[in-house]
Every structure is written in C-alpha cells, then in structure tokens.
C-alpha cells in the first residue's frame, strides 16, 4: 500500500515550485494558475481536481513541455525532461490511421523497426481489450474504445510520466465507470507515475493516491488529500463508508 511501500529516502521525480501562469490579454493578463507547488514520487497516482477553467489543462501542458510557465520552477529528476505519455480529453486519434497504426505512432517516432513495433502494439491492444479492432478506423470506434486506443498509445513507449487530461470526460456515466476499473487495472500492471486532472470527485478518489484540489480561476492548490483506500480497487469500494467520508471531505472543500 501507498504508505507502507514508500521509502522515505525516495527522491521525487518531479518538483514543482511556485508555478504561475498568466496568459496575455487586454486587461492585465489572465491568471490561469497561481503559486502551484507539489512533489511527485515514482509510481504516484496524483489527481488534480478542479472545476472547468481552473487551469487543469494548462498545468498538464506545462508538465508536457508544451507551454512555458510564466514564473516558478519545474525540476525533473536528473534534470532531464522525462518521456511523456499523454491522454487528451478528446481521444485525439489520427483519423487516417487504423487502431494499430495509431497505437504504434510513438514507436514510429523513435524509429523502431516495423515488426517490433507491431508486436508491442499488439500487446497494448490486448492490454486495453481491443483484440479484433486492429484494422478499424477511428471513425468506427465508440467513445470508450477510442479512449482505450488513446491510453494504449500513451503507454506503448513505456513513458516515465503519464499525463491524463480528463480522459473520460466525454464518455457516458456507465462507460466512464467501467474505464476507471480498466485504468486502475492497467496502472496496477504497469506501475507508472500518473498525473491526472479531472472534475469528478468519484473518479479522483477511485483512481488516485493523492488528490490535490484546485480553486476556481486562478487555479491554486486549496487542499491536499491522501487517499488511503486499499488497492487493488474494484467497483465495490465506491460504496464503502470510508470512500463516502473522503468524497464528502472533497465536496466540502470545493464548495
């Protein structure tokens, strides 16, 4: 479990200090994020919980090196930017690539040879349960299937850090809850460091080790909750009193 396993000597793989982001606009700049500081340890599953507009996507874009912070620091272990796997709110699949070809894109970019890439992609397809859909086009996939492809693509190159931007936000409630179990299982199997953002309390509690609550714009960390629910987690855990207690705590800080 989280507390038992963590060695106090482990170094954080990512330290974020006093990070702020201001987008230029006509009246003095739009403050998207304000004074964000946190640490991420290997194999953490951290969730940022915040309403829309609280700068969640902006934060992930900074972590993925897509956007420079206005002020503040971002220190990665060994001072090098880690390999990133990213899942976006919209599955962001390339419509001209089949499921197989979408999944192996990160390997192509590393110039891995075709046959090895296909074998690895096939493993990922099995991991996310899409056997038989290798040659399907994205337009023929349901929302849930498309997000599975996106998750497989984000994991295939064995990234150091997985960034998830409301990955299930566009799915219906039933599919979304099924995907939580799936993601939890995949995380258990791959033991990745994950930073996820969401606006769903249940989603953050079900998946994360730690939930950081962001305020309405500008996004500021208002609350830091350790989720001491046992793993592996299954659906039933959402109906335990402890889950309910944690959920109430989060709801109270948000309101």
């Amino acid at each position: 479990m989280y507390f038992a396993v963590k060695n106090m000597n482990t170094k954080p793989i990512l330290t974020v200090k006093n990070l702020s982001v201001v987008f230029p606009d006509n009246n003095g700049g739009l403050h998207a994020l304000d004074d964000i500081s946190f640490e991420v340890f290997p194999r953490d599953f951290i969730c940022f919980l915040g309403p829309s507009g609280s700068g969640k996507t902006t934060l992930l874009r900074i972590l993925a090196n897509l956007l420079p912070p206005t002020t503040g620091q971002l220190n990665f272990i060994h001072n090098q930017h880690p390999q990133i796997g990213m899942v976006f709110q919209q599955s962001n699949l390339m419509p001209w690539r089949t499921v197989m070809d979408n999944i192996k894109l990160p390997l192509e970019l590393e110039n891995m040879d075709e046959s090895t890439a296909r074998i690895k992609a096939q493993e990922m397809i099995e991991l996310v349960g899409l056997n038989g859909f290798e040659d399907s086009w994205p337009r023929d996939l349901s929302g849930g299937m498309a997000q599975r492809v996106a998750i497989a693509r984000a994991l295939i190159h064995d990234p150091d850090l997985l960034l998830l931007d409301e990955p299930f936000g566009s799915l219906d409630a039933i599919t979304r809850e099924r995907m939580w179990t799936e993601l939890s299982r995949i995380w258990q199997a791959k033991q990745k460091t994950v930073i996820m953002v969401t606006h769903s309390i249940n989603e953050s509690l079900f998946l994360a080790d730690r939930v950081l609550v962001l305020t309405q714009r500008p996004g500021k960390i208002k609350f830091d909750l350790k989720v001491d629910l046992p793993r592996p987690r299954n659906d039933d855990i959402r109906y335990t009193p402890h889950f309910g207690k944690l959920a109430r705590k989060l709801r109270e800080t948000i309101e």
Partner: protein
Amino acid sequence: MDINPLKVFHPSSAKRNGMWLRVLSLGLGLVCWQITSIFSGVEVFILPPPLKVWSRFLVAAQDGSLFRDIGVTFSEVVLGLIVGVTFATILGYSVAKSRALEQVLSPYLVASQAIPVVAIAPLLVLWFGYGMFSKVLICALIVFFPVLINTIVGIRAVPQAFYDLMKSLRASRKQILMKVEIPAALPIFLGGLRIGATLSVIGAVVGELIGSKYGLGNLINRARVGYDMPMVYVAVFMLIFLALGLYGIVARIEKKLLRWQETFERLNV
C-alpha cells in the same frame, strides 16, 4: 411476409443500375443529336450529326495527326499541373506556417487571384512564343491559385491537438510534416488538385487558340478555317475526354489515399 429478392437493396447492383442509366442517357443524347441535325433544318455544316463526327474521328485517327495534337495538349496540361502544383504547394505551406510571410505576400496573392489568367494569356503567348512553353506557363498560372489556397487552408486546419500530441512525444519537424500535416491536409489539397486538373486543360486550349503550332486548340483553329466542322467537334470531344481522364485520375488517387474518410463514396465518378 412478402420477401421479394428483387427488392433487396444491394449496393453493387445499385451501382450497376446507375451505370446503365448513365449509358442509356448518353445514348439517348446522341440519338437526339442525330435526329436534330437531320430534321431541324440546321445546316449540316453547322451541326454535323454524330455519325459524321465519328467517321471524321476515324479518318483523323488513322493518319496520326490527331494523336500528335492530343499528345502536345496533354503534355502542356500535365507539365503545367506539375509546375503549378509544385510552386503552389511549397508557397502555400510556407504561407500557412508564417503569418509574417502571409502579410508580405498577401497583396500579391490577392492581385494574382484578381487577374484573369485567360485575359493575360495573349501577352504570355506574345512574350514566350507559339511553342509549348507559353502554354505550360498559362496552365501553371491557372492551376496555381486554387492549389495554393487549398494548401493554406488544409495546413491551417490541422488541429492544434495533433501538434500537442506530436510535441509531447518529442517529434521532429520532419516527423510532424510527414505524419500529421501532409495526411491531415491531403483531403483539402486533393480537392484543389481536382479543380486544378480541369482548369489546366482550359489553360492549354486558351493558349493554343491564341497562337500555337500544335495541340487540340490549334486543331480547332485549323479545322474552323478549313470549314471542317466535324473535325472541330472531334477536337472538342478529345478535350472533354482529356479533362475527364485527368479528373478521374485525381478522383482515383483521392479514393485510394482517403480510404479513411467515410465521404470518399461521394467521389464515385
């Protein structure tokens, strides 16, 4: 229940029916033309019946001169397309990627769109002579604009999310070009190419009509001067087939490259 096998919808049989209807329609058109030219009282000289055109075609095909003219026009059209598309694609991509370049070039681009190439064709023929070069130039100019615009629009339409994805995976500029920008812009680009292909035929003919040594436009002039009306019709039909052929080739390329789009069915020519 009434299960009539003839009522079962079958896509391939629908396609075959569509083709028969087209053949029937063309056949009817020819019959009407033949009847009109015989019974309408219009001079055969002005409206020769299709059979006469057909036999004129056979004669011209046998002495080989027809194919020389077709070959010349075809080469001008294709060379013009290649030159125009190459320049338009390179410039279009650069403009799409650089707002500064767009600002610098936009007055010229707008002006070049406003100039009807057909109107300056006589000048081009005057400057560059009666040979193929002036026609290739006219074709290239006429093809240039639609392909340029479609390249710009196509590249600008690439969703930001794909760039984010590629950058998060540390893709190089070349990888982004090859794996995102080209495939994403391809549908719109090929739309421009399809328009360009037909325009290129027009460009070549206009150039040849103004002043040339060979080519189908030249053939039309020669036949007209010699009061050989059936030959004019032969040349016109050859031009139609040339344009249709090019259009068909581009449509075929589209169908092959854009298999991933559901809309590729609409290109069923």
